[in-house]
């Protein structure tokens, strides 16, 4: 196919963009901690936020999960799993911290 090489180049560019974005986001997070750019709570929030964005970068550029039809089923699965994970993790943290607080 004559467009095969163009296709390969475009896909390579996708991975390269993802890689660069991920490096930047990683650097920002490590930098924020290393150089203590704000209060502890703010830096932690920043780190979590940058991490979340980088996860999305990985999903989009490495795993090809987009809003398009071809990845619809995978996206629904990921979103449902995220819901369950959020329920389980937040429930665990709330309950166990509540117990910890009441035992102190």
């Amino acid at each position, binding site marked *: 196919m004559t467009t095969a090489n163009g296709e390969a180049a475009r896909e390579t560019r996708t991975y390269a963009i993802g890689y660069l974005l991920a490096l930047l986001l990683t650097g920002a997070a490590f930098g924020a901690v290393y150089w203590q750019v704000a209060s502890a709570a703010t830096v932690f929030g920043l780190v979590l936020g940058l991490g979340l964005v980088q996860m999305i970068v990985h999903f989009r550029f490495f795993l090809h999960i987009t809003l398009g039809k071809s990845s619809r*089923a995978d996206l629904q699965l990921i979103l449902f799993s995220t819901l369950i994970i959020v*329920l*389980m993790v937040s*429930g665990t943290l709330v*309950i*166990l911290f*509540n*117990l910890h607080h*009441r035992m102190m």
Partner: protein
Amino acid sequence: MNAPLWPAVFGRFGWMDLPFVRAWQDPSVSEIIGAGAGGLVVFGGLAVVVLVTWLGRWGYLWREWFTTLDHKKIGVMYVVIAFVMLSRALVEAVLMRMQQAAAINAPGFVAPDHFAQLFTTHGSIMIFFMAMPFLTGAINYVMPLQIGARDVAFPLLNAVSLWLTAGAAGLMMVSLVIGRFSTGGWTGYPPYTELAFSPDVGPDYWIWAVTLGSIGTTLSGLNFAVTIYKKRCPGMDLMRMPMFCWTSLCTAILMIFAMPPLTVATALLALDRYLGFHFFTNDLGGNMMNYANLIWLFGHPEVYILILPAFGVYSEVISTFSSKELYGYTSLVIATMAIAVLSFTVWVHHFFTMGQSANINAVFGIATMAIGLPTGVKIYDWIWTMFRGRVRFSVSMLYSLAFMMTFVLGGLTGIVLAFPPLDYLVHNTLFLVAHFHNMLIPGLLYGMLAGYNYWFPKAFGFRLDETWGRISFGCWVAGFYLAFMPLYVLGAGGMTRRSQAVFEPAFRPWLYIAGIGALVLLCALVTLFVQLWVSIRNRESTRVPVGDPWNAGGLEWSIPAPPPEYNFAVIPTVRDRDPFYVEKEAGNAYPRPKRYEPIAMPANSMTGPALGVLGAVTAFGLVWHMWWLAGLGLAASIATIIARSFVRDLYRIVPAAEVGRIDRRWRKEIDRAKPIGRAVEGTPANRGLAEVEAA
């Protein structure tokens, strides 16, 4: 005391780990019962081996059953495991009921430690090795047929799941012969199950049996979900699937997401016990409350895994035996999905008393009450399905009716338990025990038995005996009420669960009634096997080769009984819900294919049994600290998986001529058979061909 025999080879095993030696040293009734159970396992195992050898059937068993990837045979094997384990766990229940009836200001005949093992194995077996295999087997057999598929999405994975479950069940049986079982209940709460309080092999048996089984279940859930998403036949939209497939789908989703918390809980406990970690220990920062949190993150969705397939069976059975379309299909689908999602939001109600604030308890209490609503919707839908239908009281229908009435009672006590202040009064009393048996027996077990009576003719080509079916049904219902209604009274009166002895004389009459109930339930089990025996003996007069004994609507009834290996000679195209009924009404029940194509079926594989055996061997090595065995088992398991990935010959072709031959032989049966009305459904006139008035 019990010096290890040879640590390098046999780990921590010593002679006193054999129940026969223990009974010899201390011939109390309790020890003799234990030795007897161990002896039964040894004798039973040997008897099976001798019988198969004498009949010369090892080759047949290996080819047709052990290495098959056929979802139908795998389903049957799951149900066989369920029946065997049901027998053991029910006997254990009878022993416990007898002990409690005998030990009122008296020692009884079962020692406390033995009693504790009994309630632990009873619960563990009933949940993990009776209920789960039963429903997994039912889904395995029926769901692919109902969606017009030839097999599940991952047939090899299916076999691996089965054999992991079988290996785990084997481990449970071995624990009767070598060593002892956990005394920590089926949920194994630390710190009691930590090394400090239970250094013996018991909790380790529990951990590894449950872990092996839970891996199998997670993989089954994955398999079922992908099958339903990707393998439906043309025209089978999601909203045209039978309700049993909807409940199978939601069950599968629950399996995928609820088993991981169990894996985490047992793995962390194992890390504590094997490597001295401090997840749940009393000292050095352990947090045993997190265990309760993790185990119930699993445990609550688990009970919905147990009940949803039964709900699916009831939808099928009630519709078929009312000769009426299922009422409120959409509301049933929405209710099922609501139950599935909500089941992840209520887990704290299993530990209201653990110490978290009233506000947290209130949130989860409200969620728990809310989850009763979709089930209520389903009950109404089933009632409306029967209304103005022509109800036939087949054995399956009898179970469904008993379910509707009895399960609702149990649901009401669930609403009582959902109120934290009320739960504080009855938590861990027999009230709770009565409640969950009230959900599981009339809910899950009746559902599985209804499904067993309903689909047995499809699987084996002949109907089950109706008379013995009714007798067994009567015993299950009477036995349940007698055994468990008194427990509500006892629990409200303050009797704690898991009590080996009782010191309150007022409990006596209720414990006696419950004891009688247990014996009636034992009769129920025996008559269930009598039904099977009689049915096999009389099978010539109950054959239904055409395959539609009940005049039902799903695709599974449109193929021969028993079905060919590939299920459908030609994959059907579906036009509406109840697709077979639609075709029957159009006078097009058995369309002759224009042409037969060769069909590629998955080739047999020994990967399943290999991984099952190796998994059990690895687990056994871990339990007894035989590190060389555990290491070998693990390495061999990994090698098996890698070796399998090099296999290229994955299919076996069934030639078109063979497909045609099987199909034509079936069509001769159709021509020979007379279509029958429902009035003679239970007679030998029923050859599986239904008389349908054209629409």
